[in-house]
């Protein structure tokens, strides 16, 4: 699996491979559990199969982790660019129902990339997920409005500004900035009896 650069084709290939591996792992786990049950019932000959399946599972999971590490962020960034371009295009043309459904499909692809690549584990993971969910909600609402003959451009504009903000965050992250969300805040004192939060010490030079 090459996954070179951040091109859309490369990211789509990575996504397909990730999906294939996830399916394989799912099937292997089902078989593994079945064989373990058989072994527990006294069928000794199942022991070799258990060992073989465990080794296969281990290989697949390591491959999954490796691809997610190498291709997850590039696939996410390429998908974000595609989503931003889709939103710009649909906004400039007024937001037809078919185009809005296509934007929702692109959002769905990005959600799969986020999940498969385990982007929620790193810093700012929740921020990315929140942003994507906000976009989905705006586009769904825009679709609803378009279906009722209304003007969806305000909602699409909100979705586009979130997509652009996500791209700006990725540009900062690519330069080495650590993305932070509300989960990275801690209570450091009170003002007027209410808690005051700051970034956890060590998150930044300003602490």
């Amino acid at each position, binding site marked *: 699996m090459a996954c070179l650069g951040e091109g859309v084709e490369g990211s789509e290939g990575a996504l397909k491979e990730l999906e294939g591996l996830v399916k394989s792992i799912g099937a292997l786990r089902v078989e593994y559990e079945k064989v373990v049950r058989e072994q527990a019932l006294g069928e000794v000959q199942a022991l070799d199969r258990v060992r073989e399946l465990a080794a296969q599972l281990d290989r697949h999971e390591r491959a999954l982790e490796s691809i997610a590490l190498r291709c997850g962020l590039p696939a996410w960034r390429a998908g974000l660019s595609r989503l931003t371009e889709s939103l710009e295009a649909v*906004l400039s043309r007024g937001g037809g129902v078919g185009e809005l459904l296509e934007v929702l499909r692109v959002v769905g692809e990005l959600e799969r990339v986020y999940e498969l690549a385990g982007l929620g584990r790193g810093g*700012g993971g*929740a*921020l990315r997920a*929140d*942003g994507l*969910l*906000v976009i989905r*909600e705006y586009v769904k609402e825009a679709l609803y409005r378009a279906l009722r003959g209304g003007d969806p*451009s*305000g909602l*699409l*504009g*909100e979705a*586009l*500004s*979130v997509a*652009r*903000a996500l791209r*700006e*965050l990725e540009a*900062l992250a690519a*330069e*080495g*900035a*650590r*993305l*932070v*969300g*509300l989960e*990275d*805040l801690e209570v*450091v*004192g009170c*003002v*007027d009896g*209410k*808690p*005051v*939060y*700051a*970034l956890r010490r060590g*998150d*930044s*030079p*300003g602490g």
Partner: protein
Amino acid sequence: MDRDPERVIIERREGREVHYFYWRADLYKPFDYEPVTLLDGLLCTRYHWRGLVLWTDPVVKGKPLMTFALGVHTPLVYSRSWLVWVVHCARDLTLAERFWLGFYLSVFNALLQGVLRLPRGGFHGYMDKAVEGEVPEQYRLKPSEWSFLIVVGPLPERLPREVAERLEKCA
């Protein structure tokens, strides 16, 4: 200021002077107003409608220095210290507000890490663009209607009255 708005509308109303930096087009909106004012002596800006930002330690060269960053007209005042404090009514935050607060915090963190650098020159006043007037009601700064409050610089001993009143309503 180092980014040019098309106009600056100076609104005097109810004993307060607010300078609204105006752009004709902001993505999909026909125009955008970014307010700057003093609240009980503290420099105040608005961030994405529902965020209020108090700048307690601005760099002042005659006037505080500020810029609008990152394509979404995010107001940033140059500060001597970049201590960033957040007060929010967690239960009141919508998902979109959570995201925009996280975005702003990440921008501050990038500044603290030295990844994002603010322009160092080209500052000028804006009175040549200033006009007296009123802004549409929906764009007006309402210091008592924020969902989250950010303080950049040392925490003030006392919050401005309207800000404190809003804070009292937080669960």
